[in-house]
């Protein structure tokens, strides 16, 4: 270091080193207003959010499967835990901002506290990993088990921008598909190959009709880009990926008409890609199947 440099450095050191005698109380102006306002806003945020959840202003539509109910319970548990953390954290900051605003006091020199830090690290590990482990159950029950042998099989084929549902017909077998035969305008949107006897009784419809209280196994596929199958009342969604057949299953326990939507960006008509899930009584389901077979024979 050159002598000149050293000199400058010492000057700077003197300039930068403050000369306020210890104990002098100086206070920045404007901090009171800001701290009160910020504490108020944070409390308001907590109040409004808690009120919206507590009063169930925007409830999720009620679930129609047992697994959906389980998802809802896990959701509620997560909401309780995160809600408590949310309230504690936001109010904690609000309080600290208000309490420790600059009133001319001297800040306390606290570079850390290993015990405290250890405590909240352990608490966070237990809370978050515990929540994750608990959350496994609802997922495992729907995804780790294959559909039961008696499940009703329906194939879901998605394409820009429609849903098609194929029932295997009385033979219980899905017929062969050939992408070269795809022709929605002549009533063969899936490219069913009529040379295959198993294909001749396959029913293709634009809406999904299923009987109540029976397990439904969907085979989800796509003809072109990635789509998605989502019914909010089922608490179930799954992508339709070209080149893959993905199986999901569910057992609806409530009659009704529910909307099916695509949640994966699939092109310009993404917003209008939707269909319906009709959960009907067993007898109505049989009538639906018979009617479809009749239509096929004509």
């Amino acid at each position, binding site marked *: 270091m050159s002598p000149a*440099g050293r000199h400058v450095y010492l000057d700077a050191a003197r300039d930068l*080193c403050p000369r306020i005698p210890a104990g002098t109380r100086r206070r920045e102006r404007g901090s009171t207003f800001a701290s009160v306002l910020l504490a108020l806003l944070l409390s308001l945020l907590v109040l409004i959010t808690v009120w919206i959840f507590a009063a169930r202003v925007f409830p999720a539509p009620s679930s129609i499967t047992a697994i959906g109910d389980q*998802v809802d319970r896990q959701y509620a548990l997560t909401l309780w835990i995160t809600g408590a953390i949310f309230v504690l954290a936001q109010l904690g900051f609000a309080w*600290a901002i208000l309490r420790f605003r600059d009133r001319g006091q001297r800040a306390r020199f606290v570079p850390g506290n290993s015990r405290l830090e250890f405590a909240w690290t352990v608490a966070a590990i237990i809370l978050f990993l515990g929540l*994750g482990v608990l*959350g496994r159950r609802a997922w495992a029950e729907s995804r780790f088990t294959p559909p039961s042998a008696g499940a009703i099989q329906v194939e879901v084929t998605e394409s820009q921008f429609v849903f098609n549902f194929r029932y295997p017909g009385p033979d219980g077998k899905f017929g062969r598909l050939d992408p*070269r035969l795809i022709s929605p305008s002549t009533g063969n949107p899936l490219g069913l190959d009529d040379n295959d006897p198993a294909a001749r009784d396959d029913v293709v419809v634009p809406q999904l009709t299923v009987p109540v209280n029976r397990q439904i196994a969907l085979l989800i596929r796509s003809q072109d880009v990635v789509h998605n199958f989502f019914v909010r009342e089922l608490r179930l969604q799954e992508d339709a990926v070209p080149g893959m057949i993905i199986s999901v299953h569910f057992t609806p326990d409530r009659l009704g008409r529910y909307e099916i939507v695509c*949640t994966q*960006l699939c092109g*310009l008509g993404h917003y209008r890609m939707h269909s319906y899930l009709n959960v009907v009584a067993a007898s109505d389901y049989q009538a639906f199947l018979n009617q479809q077979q009749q239509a096929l024979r004509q």
Partner: protein
Amino acid sequence: MKSRVDSAQAAAPGQIGFVRRCLFSTDHKVIGIQYFFLALFAVLIGIVLSLFMRFHLVWPAAHLSWIPWLSGGLMTPEQYLALVTMHGTLMVFFVLTVAPQSAFGNYFLPLQIGAPEMAFPRLNMLSFWLTFVALLVMLAAFVVPGGAPISGWTAYTPLSSVGSVAGPGEGLGQTLWIASIGIFCIASLLGALNFISTTIDMRAPGMTLMRMPLTVWAWFVTAILSLLAFAVLLAAAILLLLDRSAGTSFFTPAGIVLSGQLQPHAGGSPLLWEHLFWFFGHPEVYIAILPGMGVTSHVLANFSRKPVFGYKAMAITLCAIGFLGFLVWGHHMFVSGMSPYSSIAFSLLTMSIGVPSAIKTCNWLGTIWHGKLQLKSPMLFSLGFVSVFVTGGLSGLFLAQPALDNMLHGTYYVVAHFHLIMGVAAIFGIFAATYLWFPKMFGRAMNERLGQIHFWLTFVGAYCIFMPMHFIGIEGGIRRYSDYTGANYLAALQPLHRFSTIAAFATAAAQLIFLFNLFWSLRKGAPASANPWNATTLEWATPSPPPRDNFGAWKPAVYRGPYEYSVPGAAADFIPQHLSPADLEAAGAD
């Protein structure tokens, strides 16, 4: 190679021409400012795009006949999706990656570690100009036939890999998008390489790792993430480009039929693209947010006049979040057809990121506890950062569970989550950094009153935009819909959308205050002293703005940690890092 100028000219910086000084400068400070204005330009475009989207969602039938590119004043679905794609891409790449890391990191990393320059100044310049070219190429997608791509910033294949047969914008627009991303990757790799080498080898004497300001830690970890993540994205982008233009089948499956045509591809895997993309995409989230965490820690200590609570834990958690960030990409793919067993592994790893995040939040609370809080604009934005980080982080605990993702994936809940934690929090970090360092960068102070007004409006506005989106999502409102005439239940959510849109316009208007403050202060702001915030770190030990070589003849040396505020027994409530014990004694004796 640039021609060498003779030493006489080199001695007089004033004689270096405008082009070398301001355009093709190798000065990390000039480059940082260039990046800052590039990000500012990109964010303005991004905001305007989002306003068009919000407007269209709420008033889809409104005729905006004054906009030439709308046919008859109405926005088509593909135009809406082009806005979605370009808003996301501009914001993620050219704002959230560029501003916190490339802009402020470039300017302040060498200053804070006491280095006169980056390790590789020319690579640094090259990196900026590549980013600039990438931005131009990206914006060019708007004006080519077919328009900008409609496949979103994630560019899922095959939508993005088969060309214009998949939709408008999927022709040349998508190709330009991929090219731009490729160039951006190379620029980011060069930048990251520079950051890492500089941090490792250019620190001043005494600047041990555990004396580095937390901002430096954050930039350092972010640079490592960039280095590893962008290399993967570059590889993926090359393969995607080949699928589009050379007829290969990396990501494009066989037998797909679009517009009635069987596509000539064989057996590619869309999931492979998703894996490669999210292997980059998730660390990218941390690339955006980590510098904000660093700035927040830095500012909270400064304006609480207290040391950072648990400095070591703060540095370790930055590294932990960065490390875990590479192991959790699968949580974007719970419902993608990936194995449900891997979902559980990804879920638990994702939940465990909550641990370092919670530690950070507690430590931030610990930092302001028993402090002497001075609520200046940088402090306000940092406190805002913490609040938004908590809110956005907690909603992540829902999305991290595959069972709950079953009902929330693809809905506005996700939009709310990532906008709060990645968008708003990171932007608050950028604002805090701007208000904090503007005096150092330009030698003038920003207007404090305008800064405060800007904060109040932005803080309230941001929550008003994004909180309702949680509820839209819980009710099943799907994102990326240009119109809510599809599913019938979506129409019922319109009031929430309307609230969100109005808030978006109000918040965007509030940013005009910031812009005015910025440009007005550039010319008319009160002259700033070297250390206007009574701060301890090295960037404040040099004039505002610093000379070309940062510290002049002085070779800084460091004698203490970065956050020595209110040290008991000290004459004042801060001790700069470069004060030796002897200096301190000498100064105290005055």
